[in-house]
């Protein structure tokens, strides 16, 4: 949760049970979509890469993981023009996804403690 105000709003909108459920789904989305991105980058599959980046951008945006969302949107544009750079972009996405997941774990822990 890279944007504290967004996270607080989400917590208020959803309540703890629904928020926990959404964040669990987000965790599964990150694991699945980064896997798809890696495969697409390795296979120079521009269409598959763009599609997965779009999905991950949407998921990240929904939970306020702004940095990951923005990187994914940049990657969507790159997929169409800079096919050779997808692996490098993938590395950045991996790092940001790990950051988001760490934030997510901290946020869930704080929810559990409250």
């Amino acid at each position, binding site marked *: 949760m890279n944007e504290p105000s*967004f996270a607080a709003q989400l917590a208020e909108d*959803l309540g703890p049970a629904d928020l926990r*459920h*959404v964040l669990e*789904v987000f965790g599964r*989305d990150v694991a699945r979509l980064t896997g798809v991105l890696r495969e697409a980058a390795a296979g120079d599959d521009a269409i598959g890469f763009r*599609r997965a980046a779009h*999905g991950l951008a*949407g998921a990240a945006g929904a939970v306020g993981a702004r940095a990951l969302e923005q990187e994914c*949107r940049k990657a969507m544009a790159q997929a169409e023009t800079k096919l050779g750079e997808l692996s490098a972009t993938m590395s950045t996405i991996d790092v940001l996804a790990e950051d988001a997941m760490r934030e997510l774990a901290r946020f869930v822990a704080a929810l559990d403690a409250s």
Partner: protein
Amino acid sequence: MVSDGHPAARILVVEDTPTQAELARALLGSLGYQARIAPSAGWALVAAREWQPDAILVDIELPDYNGFELMQQLHGEGIDAAVIVVTANASISAAVQAMRAGAVDFIVKPYAKARLAVTLANVLEKRALVAVREQAETRADRDKFFGFIGSSAPMRAAYRTIESVAGSKASVFITGESGTGKELAADAVHRASPRASHHFVALNCGAIPRDLLESEVFGHVRGAFTGAANDREGAAKLADGGTLFLDEIGEMPLDMQVKLLRFVQTGTFSPVGSSKVERVDVRFVCATNRDPLLEVRAGRFREDLYYRLYVVPIDLPPLRARGDDVLAIARHFLVTFSREEARRFSGFSAEAEAMLLAYDWPGNVRQLQNVIRNVVVLHDGELVTAEMLPPPVYRPGIAVVPPAQAALPIAVTRGFEPDPQSPATPAAVASAPSDAWQGEIVPLATMERRLIVAALRQTDNDVPRAAALLEINPSTIYRKLQAWRALGLAI
């Protein structure tokens, strides 16, 4: 069969990313809406057809085809749910594109609960207002009335009776040939009544094996008979607060009629196998395609039950007595089926219209529906021509006068060159001077009485319908009847 009252609005979310879909589902649930998720445009189309959502939240980028194409498909299928585009692109051009494609609003992702709440409230309120306005227009012009189409005098009379009786709890007895819309009339009585928010439960007494009928009406308890593994509520209980429609009531066995009579009289019943008495508040609407009084005289229908149920009769006219309604209904089916079958039909040729009007439709609206379905499935084009009509509607060698040339109901003439001098041809009748009355000349008051009595006979003494046929106020007939009785005149 069972129609619910006013459940929470249904929102379909078309979204392929699980995080966003689950977030939308959670937010909609917390706002009190029913939500379903469609992960692709194809799923969305299926869900929209089956679930009939009030609003659809559409993501633009979908795995099969994009949200704009989905909106075109929804529009093409006549699905009138309010479409709200949900997009990460906050540009003006995206908004314009969404609106041009038929969206009523758009939301930028990520969105907060408050934004979603306001957007949906506005969209649904606007939709409800449109529905109210359309219903008001429908009632005003009388071309349509709930599920009915048509504005002929006998149908307008039926609409008036339905509206008059809807507010009361009086039992309604609908008669009419098969295919005239008896269940539609029952449904209209329910929907126009204060009971509309409760269930309308329809039971076809002729389609249920006689051994099961009591259980279907009153329910049963576990172990009541072989195969009764659980307690089961019957139609009487399900219709509590609403309307119980007993179709083909003339088919009900006499022993069951005794039990129904007790239920009608007391409002109480016992499920099969139980001694517990249950009380419900049910409005009865019955229907039959037979003459109920003849059934009573023949001993097939209990007289006491007849008088309990035959409180407000509604006699639905056969299609052959409904004049131009045939064309209005045919056009409605043509549009509906052409959309379903992806055909281009937009109307009928003059000759086809004349043939539709000339045919006597023994199977009534149901037969007309089948004929139009047949035409649409087997043919394509802009206009339905006479040759596309299946027999017996299309009769080669029989010419009919196109409606535009006939001022009176269409007459069928043999051959393609009707004799303009023949008094049997509509053209000749239409061209006769209006003052060329050849019948007996009698005092105007006598003629008035004859006409009113004839109208009453034709409508089985249904004063509002007779008044509609004569285009006078029912109170005029009541007043005349009273005056003639006072004068000792035979009526």
